[in-house]
């Protein structure tokens, strides 16, 4: 099989690396940048440090502090209008996925007319934007290295993505110290989002040797360090490894793409308001068991990344069952509830199966499955 690895973002990484931002932005030739962030981040003091760092390097900074979770199209259009008016020549995003995705959407609209909704899907011919620098403060989305931005379309009441080179950051700065304050719950949810990126890109139809290597390393790091960070949020080594894991997983999936696990997560998120990382984890064991039928070797790799030895003669059913059990034990160990524990009825759960098959991620599934098979997966995950 001939595959390709095409997306790559230069990365500065290590504790304290946020303080390189000023110099790097100056190297990129920017004179005035827009800093995007959410209101809560301001309280941590990181935004002030970043702005001071930029200004000390001779760069003017204006802030858009109105980033909302699951960025609505109306909000990014307002921010883009502000950016155009301020005549900025660079964007620095600091925060989780929402802040980075907002910055990406602004970058799309800098030189392309609104509304953003017209650019949903794969866009190959958008006008380029300005240099975009992403500084994640969670270890999950991988948005700092991906070509996509997820936007909530307020008129359609659904989330969708713009995929474009304009969304690909010019530089990612990975400073693990920024994640030290994350709660155990947020640590688990975000890391499981990264784990979902890794296991799905490893088993997806567009997987390639480089994305596989990145995905495997991400799984190994998360398997080892998420339990440590979950129990001791101040462990900087664990924070460091989780941050790299989420970036590796982001690099893997922006090239190899994710599939049914994310289709299920999108619907669970939309129907029951379950946080994305948690929604990704809920049926992940079943999705990987399903993938074992065609992606047997890849699922074997997942088991091995968790330190499980697989017999050489094991068939896809044994490998799939082992992966399912391993993933479920891991997910439960970091406090992720099942759908029953979340108070959702079995009937409501099974009813979403047809919606899952309509999600765009379904197109890239390893092989086609019916809504009734998706319902079987959901039933298996329901009270597991």
């Amino acid at each position: 099989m001939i595959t390709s690895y095409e997306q790559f973002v230069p990365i500065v990484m290590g504790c304290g690396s946020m303080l390189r931002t000023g110099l790097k932005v100056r190297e990129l030739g920017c004179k005035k940048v827009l800093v995007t962030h959410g209101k809560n981040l301001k309280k941590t003091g990181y935004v002030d440090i970043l702005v001071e760092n930029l200004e000390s390097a001779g760069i003017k900074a204006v802030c858009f502090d109105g980033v909302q979770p699951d960025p609505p199209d109306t909000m990014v259009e307002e921010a883009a209008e502000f950016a155009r008016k301020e005549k900025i020549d660079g964007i620095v995003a600091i925060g989780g996925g929402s802040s980075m995705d907002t910055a990406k959407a602004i970058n799309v609209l800098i030189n392309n007319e609104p509304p953003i909704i017209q650019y949903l899907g794969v866009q190959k011919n958008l006008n380029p934007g300005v240099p975009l620098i992403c500084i994640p403060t969670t270890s999950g989305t991988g948005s700092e290295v991906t070509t996509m931005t997820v936007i909530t379309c307020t008129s359609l009441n659904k989330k969708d993505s713009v995929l474009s080179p304009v969304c690909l950051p010019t530089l990612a700065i990975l400073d693990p110290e920024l994640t030290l304050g994350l709660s155990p719950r947020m640590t688990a949810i975000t890391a499981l989002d990264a784990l979902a990126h890794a296991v799905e890109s490893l088993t997806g139809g567009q997987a390639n040797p480089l994305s596989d290597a990145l995905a495997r390393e991400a799984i190994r790091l998360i398997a080892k360090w998420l339990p440590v960070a979950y129990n001791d949020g101040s462990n900087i080594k664990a924070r460091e490894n989780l941050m790299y894991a989420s970036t590796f997983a982001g690099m893997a999936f922006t090239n190899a793409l994710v599939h049914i696990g994310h289709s299920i997560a999108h619907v669970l998120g939309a129907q029951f308001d379950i946080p994305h990382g948690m929604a990704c984890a809920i049926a992940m064991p079943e999705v990987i068991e399903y993938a074992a039928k065609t992606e047997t070797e890849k699922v074997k790799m997942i088991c091995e990344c968790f330190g499980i030895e697989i017999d050489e003669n094991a068939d896809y059913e044994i490998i799939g069952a082992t992966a399912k059990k391993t993933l479920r034990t891991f997910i439960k160990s970091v406090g992720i509830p099942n759908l029953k524990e979340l108070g959702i009825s079995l009937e409501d759960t099974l009813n979403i199966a047809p919606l899952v098959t309509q999600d765009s991620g379904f197109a890239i599934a390893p092989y086609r499955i019916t809504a009734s098979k998706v319902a079987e997966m959901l039933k298996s995950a329901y009270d597991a």
Partner: protein
Amino acid sequence: MWSKLVVNMDNLSISRVALEEEFQDLGGRSLIAQYLIKNVPPTCDPLGEENVLLFATGIFAGTRFATANRLSVGSKSPLTGGIKESNVGGYAATLLAEHGIKLITISGLPKDDNLRILYIDKNGNANLLDANEYKGINNYEFVEKIHERFGKDLATISIGSAGERLYKCSSIQVSEYNSGHPSRAAGRGGLGAVMGSKGIKGIVIEKPEEKYEIPYKDKEKFEEICLKLNRMIAESAKKDPFHNIGTISTIEVTAPNGILPVANFSGKLFKDYKKVGANKFMENLKTRGGRNKIPCQPGCIVQCSNCYNDENGNYLTSGFEYETIAMFGPNCLISDLDAIAKMDRICDDIGVDTIETANAIAMCMEAGKINWSDADAVLNLLNEMAEGTEFGRLLGQGCEAVGKSLGVERIPVVKHQAMAAYDPRNTKGTGITYATSPMGADHTAGLTMGRAFDDSGRTAQAYASNKLQVAIAFADSMMCIMTFANMVPGVPLLAEMMAALYGGSSDFSRVASIGVKTLLTEREFNRRAGMTDADDRLPDFFYKERSFATGSKFDIHDMELRTIFDF
């Protein structure tokens, strides 16, 4: 109420009855699938008395919807041994709809060797006329004689000598609107042989004196939606290369990307493709008084047909298409457009499928019987088919028969039917369609080119093939797919139009379920005919040999093929 013309060749009887209630709101491919599974034993001999030959008009036949008057021909295929629906443009379906006929069924076998014409006069009376005087003549001459005898205000559906000889690659030719040329082919699957087996040389349909009044449920609403869709199609067609040039424009995309088959699907690029490309085609039209933008049926806005003249400016052929040019051209290493046009003319005239025939010719080149690039040798072989020599008759049995007979290992067929002009390694979704379509290797069943992430990659190919196969199955029931391609944003309106015409639901699921049900019915017919999963695979060489243009093999997992129709 739509009617059905029932022709029984056992006793030479004809009756006109109301079409069954359950079939009233079906048409084209969907009607054929449902009719065949209920009325034809899937294990029957395709050329025997149990097989039935069907001619069906579409769901919107007789309305003003663009290309609503496409004709579907259906039967058990002598070539594939499975179900077959082959659809065609031309004038016939328009006139059938004006007569209020949605379906013609021709069953049984005549007890004698006489040839007959099914003649539908201007008053809607149908008769079987003696046609022995036309025995052995080919389509162009047949149409000329029919015009001399009955005038020109009619449409013809006919077979040439190939159909009479029961060639498995024989086509049924339909006359084009205005010109009357028998250049529109229901080409695939050897349906001409089924017509030949029933002793029917042609069907002649006079324009009726009184047009059948379509019983619209809500005519005003129908006209409103129809106008909206027709405008959308007209607007989109302005930018469609099929309108501005013709289907030959496809070669400009396929040739540089290794999708165009070259030298029997060798996977190589063909550096001379421009000699048979769009510019050369347009230049020849311009300098010789040819034309493009010709509608093959009344009311078509896409107008992808053409009239191609020889170097002296005399009419040579029409409906000169990409598939024919690609398969007789680059796939045989021939880059002489005029020679290919002559081949097209012979195929239309004797009534054979250009795709099947050109692939059979490529087998002769692969085996060394004739040389690659030798257009004269190809024309000689086609003349052998016309004359019915021993080798000509072998050619008439199609690509697989010729390949096997000559000891060729690389035979590009699925379900015994030869592939069209897309290399399945470099448009893998099309390869999935070739493998899994109940019709055999048929590009019109779901051509995914440009619709997945990377034509030579695996991602989303099965998804694209599935979605397109469903869409085409319902589109084949209501219009020409060239029109369909120009109205994709308006697809949900098709359900509203069905509701305005027939009543019932206006939900899109009504239209989608026509596609799904048709595919599943066709698969069930094939299963009962004895086909298995093994019939849903490409020939080995596509899995083993790399395309030299891209390095790609057909590396689609069997599980993706096995689950393609899990709905």
